[in-house]
């Protein structure tokens, strides 16, 4: 167990170092950092002084070491475009993205799991067929198109909901929240649904597939033979046994939600990190790109690590297999 965790931890560190190396190479070799930081009328001496001060003449490993150390402390330098520290910009915009992502994840889970269970139990019901058809459409509609359709329906035709921005926000310390005002909540509805829809269909299809698999097993048949009520078999026996893969996928999807937030934030002009990232890609604002890359990688690596360890803890068969094959 300790050995396994240590091995996975080591892998995670290697991944993070690789990502940091890519981010550093981006920062150092894509475009000239000095040119991007100073104005046109800066003299050669001033440029040389800045280069000296930033240590851009040091050996590669020294520079990378410094970059990694700063990155570990959350410092990624100054944005070329905004002329402000990247860490400040991210701190400012993180709450918007996190509120949106977490709400979408909750929505996707709260709707996706019951729909998956229902379609598995009533396989041939008309409602199940409707759900399955809807889910295929949900997978085929790109996220941005769902957003545009929602804007057209609820924003332009019905005029019920705001079509862009976060509404009024309240500051709680450094965290700005849109959850406490009516306009903030209203502004959250459409982006949250847009972001949740794709994950919802994925979760639903996964739960359905896993449930169908489990309902075929002998212990479910045995449960039925014992005369256990359907409700007990479906929810206590079957659903519980589908939860391991479902939790894994949901964990991995959490990372995907943050990535897909880029699209949703662009459609709804939501002032989060995703919108800032896509603007940075358009304007080749390397410090922001590097910071976002490292941050997203960190989120993914942590989620992967936690899921792997959870798997190991939850499923005893994994432990036995490893012991038996000597891995």
């Amino acid at each position, binding site marked *: 167990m300790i050995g396994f965790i240590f091995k996975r931890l080591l892998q995670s560190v290697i*991944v993070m170092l*690789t990502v940091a190396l890519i981010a550093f190479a*981006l920062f150092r070799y*894509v*475009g000239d950092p000095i040119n991007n930081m100073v104005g046109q009328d800066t003299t050669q001496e001033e440029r040389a002084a800045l280069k000296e001060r930033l240590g851009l003449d040091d050996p590669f490993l020294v520079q990378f070491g410094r970059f990694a150390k700063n990155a570990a402390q959350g410092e990624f330098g100054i944005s070329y475009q905004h002329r402000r520290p990247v860490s400040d910009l991210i701190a400012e915009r993180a709450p918007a993205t996190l509120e949106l992502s977490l709400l979408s994840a909750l929505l996707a889970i709260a709707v996706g799991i019951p729909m998956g269970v229902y379609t598995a139990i009533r396989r041939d019901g008309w409602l199940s067929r409707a759900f399955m058809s809807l889910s*295929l*459409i949900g*997978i*085929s*509609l*790109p*996220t*941005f*198109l769902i957003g*545009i*359709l929602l*804007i*057209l329906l609820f924003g*332009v035709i019905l005029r019920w909901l705001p*079509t862009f921005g976060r509404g009024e926000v309240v500051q709680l310390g450094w965290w700005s929240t849109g959850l406490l005002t009516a306009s903030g909540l209203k502004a959250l509805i459409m982006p949250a649904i847009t972001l949740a829809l794709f994950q919802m269909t994925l979760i639903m299809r996964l739960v359905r597939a896993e449930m169908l698999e489990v309902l075929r097993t002998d212990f479910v048949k045995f449960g039925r033979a014992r005369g256990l009520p359907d409700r007990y078999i479906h929810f206590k026996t079957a659903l519980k046994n589908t939860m391991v893969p479902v939790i894994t996928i949901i964990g*991995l999807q959490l*990372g*995907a939600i943050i*990535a*897909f937030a*880029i*699209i949703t934030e*662009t*459609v709804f002009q939501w002032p989060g990190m995703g919108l800032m990232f*896509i603007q*940075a*890609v*358009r304007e*080749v604002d*390397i410090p922001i*790109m590097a910071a976002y*890359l490292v941050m*997203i*990688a960190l989120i*993914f*690596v942590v989620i*992967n690590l936690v899921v792997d360890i959870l798997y190991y803890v939850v499923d005893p068969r994994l432990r036995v297999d490893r012991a038996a094959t000597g891995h």
Partner: protein
Amino acid sequence: MADTLQRTPRTRLGRAFDSDIWHSFIRSPLVILSAVISIAIFAAAIFAPWIAPHNPFDLASIDLMDSSLPPMWLEDGDPRFLLGTDDQGRDILSTIIYGARISLLVSVAAVVFSMVLGITLGLISGYVGGRTDAIIMRVADVQLAFPAILIAMLIDGVVRGLLPRDMHGDVAIYVLVFAIGISGWVQYARTVRGSTLVEKNKEYVQAARVIGIGPVTILWRHVLPNVTGPVLVIATIHLAIAIITEATLSFLGVGVPPTTPSMGTLIQVGQDYLFSGEWWITIFPGIALAVLVLAINLFGDWLRDALNPKLR
């Protein structure tokens, strides 16, 4: 070739029409419909200059007097423009056909690129084994942990940074093909590697090796034919994903340049007119995109089931 045709009781075509897959195909109307729709859109895209009612890039044929006309069945609609016109007087139907051309060109090229890269790496990984295999599969694992669209976005951003600013527009399409292609090779590599591992220890492969056939020939003639089915299924579903990715990146402004019509740029440009009531500029390209992706997905789902011997 003629020799084999004579010896088999029926022609190749005859055998194809008698196969399980053909029977399964002909029995599912929804699959036939989606195949027809996919082929129709592909054909329209390939033959765009002959099929499109107008040429939206021929400045001589565009008249600003025709700008922002609604679809022909609505009030003020003009029978010359079936789905209406945009703010510059271009026919929406024609821009969709030309847009599909770019979108499909990029997606198909990206899928082919992914496929070649994935199959090559998968074959090498499975056949050579050892450290090479470990490195390739480790990279694949790491890449699989990130959503493909994010990787494509990052590659796009990096290449943009590496190139001088005024070159972006010219090379954007190649960059996009490269970015989408790189982000999708893992699925192919894993499948091909698995089959290679199984095949390489079979007796006929060992026999081939004994009589001195080189590894490239063995992989090409004996291992590769075993994976065409699964690779075809992955490619179909990947095509749908590639089309969505292209549209999304172009919509976000990091794909093809805004002046080039693709499904994504058309929807993006049209989004601004949503609020002034000219919904058709963005909604029709959107519907076209959704229908195309849905048709390919349905076809891919069926192909996966049809080629899966477990489900027969």
